[in-house]
Structure formats: structure tokens, C-alpha cells
């Protein structure tokens, strides 16, 4: 190990049971962070600082003002730039001694296995169920450990999935705990809010689990699920089990949701081309809306008839998440309709006015 590295990492090399051997393991490790959001930002920061030799960051999305309260790697001057690229640029300055690999892509069933190939450990910094399940199933198929994290309002979850435990067996994964989810029933951060410091805590806990997995230190949260409440700081660790009991053979198909951008929609509205549908909750509708019908996402199934129309439908919500779910739902129920989701939702609509 170089003298400058010995110095840079001296305060962790000094840890009991760590030493130069552990630092070398970090240097040789290849870790992929999927999602450079509220969890991915702090996680990637600490993985870079600790000297993970190859750190990949995957994100197709761009920096957005409304996420800066918890995505601490970004500044307002970078709004609109790709998050994976900006994050890699910054972290390369923070630690010039490691290799940073930006992946400016949306993780799909078509590309996820190829993406995982070059990495040993995967960190889940995603913000939606589709990608969480996709990543989980891909890690199971590829045999890679997945360090999971998720947050909502004041509560967070952390776990380490899919670690080899005994002859041919692997520790539980996401589907052992939550076999499947109707995403339209669970609010995301844009709707329900999230306290930024919780994102920081959970992201750091995920990076911490990666360091433990790579160096063999401590007891990673394998077969366990940690729950943390930032309001009281009470946490508990749920024992999930020793081995996984689910079988995963194929990846879930990633469904492409047809999107419409704010400028496109504005032009279309001027020409009377679209029928708008607001899928937000009553309070959100009352506070501000951009017209059209109002059918909250959780009532969409029951009120599907009133959406019959000759024009293409454009669903909108706060961030584009619920309207995406609405599009998937409607395509199943009314396959003939032309449907779009407003990209970035009301937030993007407002941001492009500011």
C-alpha cells in the first residue's frame, strides 16, 4: 500500500481487527450504488471516502430542486444535469485514488444483469417498488449481496439480502419479507414527505453494511430487518430468518410508461389535444391543480368508466410516480386508450415556471 494511502486511511486502518488487509479488501471491492437520491448520496459519499476501489453509480434522472433538501451531493446550479455523472465528478475530487463509474441509464429488466456483472455488492438507493423488486430479483439471479434501504416520512428500513449462508443456500431477500406490493397503495416521499436527516442516517447505515460485508467486520444485517424511527430514535432489529424460502427464476418485466414533458403538455393543452386526470389526494388537489378531472389513485379502479374519452389521457400527480402507476393500471383495464404520465409531475410544472 502506498504511503499516501496508509495516511489517508490511517484512522480506519487503526481500528481493531481492521488493519491494512481490510483496507486492501475495500480497494479491491467493486460496489454499485443504484439511485443517487436521498439514500445514494450519503452512501456513495462514505463509500468513496472509505476507499472502495471501484464505485459505480447508476441513475437516469437529473438533479431537481425539490430533492435538494435530502440529496446533499447536489447544488441548484446543477439542476437538470444527470445525477450519476454529477455525483461521480464530485466524489472523484473527494477521493482521486478510486475509480468512479457513472451509469446514466434507467435500470430495466433488459440491462440489469449486464450492469451487475462488474460488481461484487449492490446498494439499493432507489425510490420506487418496481426498481426495488427488479434489483432484488436480479441480485438473487446473479448471486450478489444487496444492501437494501428505504425511507418514508420519519421511518426507515435497512437490511442485507441474499448473502451465501450455508451449502448452496442464501439468506432471505426482499421477497421473503414482502412478496409483492401494490405500489399505488403506498405513498412515496414526494407525497408523504421525508425528513432529510433520516435519509442521511439510513444511507450511512447502508454504506456501513457494505463496509462490514467487504471487510468481514462485525455482524451485517443478514437475515434481519432494521427499523428506525427518527422521531424517537427507537430502533428495532427484526429477525427474518436464516435462509430464503422464495424461488426467483425470471426478472419482472420492466414496463415503460409513456411520458409527456411539461413543455409538450403545455403546447398540447393550448391546442386542446389532451384530457387531463389529476390522481393526487383531495388536499393536494385543493391546494393547486392544472385542470382536468380528479380521480385519486386509490379510487382509479372503481371510477375507471368516467375516464372513457376520445382524446389521449394525461395523468398527473406531484412527482410523476403515482401518475406512472395510474398509466400502468389503466393500460391493464382499458388497453385501447392512449395514455401518458406527466414527467416530473406538478413539481416539474412549477419548476419550469420559476
Amino acid at each position, binding site marked *: 500500500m502506498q504511503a499516501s494511502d496508509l495516511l489517508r486511511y490511517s484512522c480506519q486502518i487503526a481500528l481493531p481487527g481492521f488493519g491494512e488487509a481490510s483496507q486492501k479488501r475495500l480497494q479491491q471491492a467493486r460496489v454499485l450504488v443504484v*439511485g443517487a*437520491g*436521498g*439514500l*445514494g448520496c450519503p452512501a456513495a459519499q462514505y463509500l468513496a471516502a472509505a476507499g472502495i476501489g471501484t464505485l459505480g453509480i447508476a441513475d437516469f434522472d437529473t438533479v431537481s430542486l425539490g430533492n435538494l433538501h435530502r440529496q446533499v451531493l447536489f447544488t441548484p446550479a446543477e439542476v437538470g444535469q444527470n445525477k450519476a455523472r454529477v455525483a461521480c465528478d464530485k466524489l472523484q475530487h473527494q477521493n482521486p485514488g478510486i475509480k468512479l463509474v457513472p451509469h446514466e441509464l434507467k435500470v430495466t429488466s433488459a440491462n440489469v444483469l449486464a450492469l451487475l456483472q462488474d460488481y461484487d455488492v449492490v446498494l*439499493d*438507493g*432507489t*425510490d*420506487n*417498488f418496481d426498481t*426495488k423488486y427488479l434489483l432484488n430479483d436480479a441480485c438473487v439471479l446473479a448471486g450478489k449481496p444487496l444492501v437494501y*434501504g*428505504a*425511507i*418514508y*416520512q420519519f*421511518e*426507515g*428500513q435497512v437490511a442485507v439480502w441474499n448473502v451465501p449462508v450455508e451449502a448452496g443456500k442464501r439468506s432471505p431477500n426482499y421477497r*421473503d*419479507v*414482502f*412478496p*409483492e*406490493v*401494490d*405500489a399505488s*397503495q*403506498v*405513498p*412515496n*416521499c414526494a407525497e*408523504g414527505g*421525508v425528513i432529510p436527516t433520516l*435519509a442521511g442516517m439510513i444511507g450511512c447505515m447502508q454504506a456501513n453494511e457494505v463496509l462490514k460485508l467487504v471487510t468481514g467486520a462485525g455482524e451485517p444485517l443478514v437475515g434481519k*430487518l432494521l*427499523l428506525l424511527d427518527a422521531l424517537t430514535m427507537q430502533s*428495532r*432489529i*427484526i*429477525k*427474518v*430468518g436464516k435462509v430464503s424460502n422464495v424461488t426467483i427464476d425470471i426478472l419482472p418485466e420492466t414496463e415503460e410508461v409513456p411520458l409527456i414533458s411539461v413543455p409538450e403538455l403545455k403546447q398540447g393543452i393550448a391546442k386542446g389535444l389532451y384530457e387531463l386526470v389529476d390522481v393526487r389526494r383531495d388536499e393536494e388537489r385543493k391546494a393547486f391543480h392544472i385542470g382536468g378531472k380528479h380521480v385519486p389513485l*386509490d379510487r382509479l379502479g372503481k371510477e375507471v368508466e368516467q375516464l372513457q374519452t376520445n382524446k389521449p389521457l394525461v395523468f398527473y400527480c406531484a412527482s410523476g410516480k403515482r401518475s406512472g402507476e395510474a398509466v400502468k393500471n389503466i393500460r391493464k383495464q382499458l388497453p385501447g386508450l392512449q395514455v401518458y404520465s406527466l414527467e416530473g409531475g406538478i413539481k416539474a410544472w412549477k419548476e419550469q415556471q420559476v
Partner: protein
Amino acid sequence: MKVKVLAFGIAKDIFGSSSTAVELSGEATVEALRTALEMQYPRLKQLSSFMIAVNDEYAEAGQELAPEDEVAIIPPVSGG
């Protein structure tokens, strides 16, 4: 048997509080509790899945509940 359950995440919103109580008239298994909860709170069923933990351990459907057990309802969370 009356079972007190603690709520996490969206279950707090669904119960309208951080805990609730469920009366199980027949057998007191985890599955019976799940069914009773889904009856009492239809939104729980719509989630498709939520974890039931008993004394900080994942509980299988057939597990019997005792009155002193601490039962937690842990729904999935997707934020990041």
C-alpha cells in the same frame, strides 16, 4: 383473545394511530390475525403484502399467538 398490534410506516396512517387492538374469536394464529386486520382495515389488504413480526421475529402464517406477545405490523416502504 385480544391482540394488541404496533403499527409501522403506512400502517400508522391506516390504523389512524401507532397501535390498535384486534379481537380474535377463533384460533389465535398469525394468519387469523392477518385476516382480521384486513377485514377491519381494507387498505391493508390492498397493499398486497405486509410483514407481521412477533417479539421482533418474522412470524409464519401458522404461528400461534400468546396474550403477552408483542405484535408489529410492518408494511413495505419505497422512498429513497
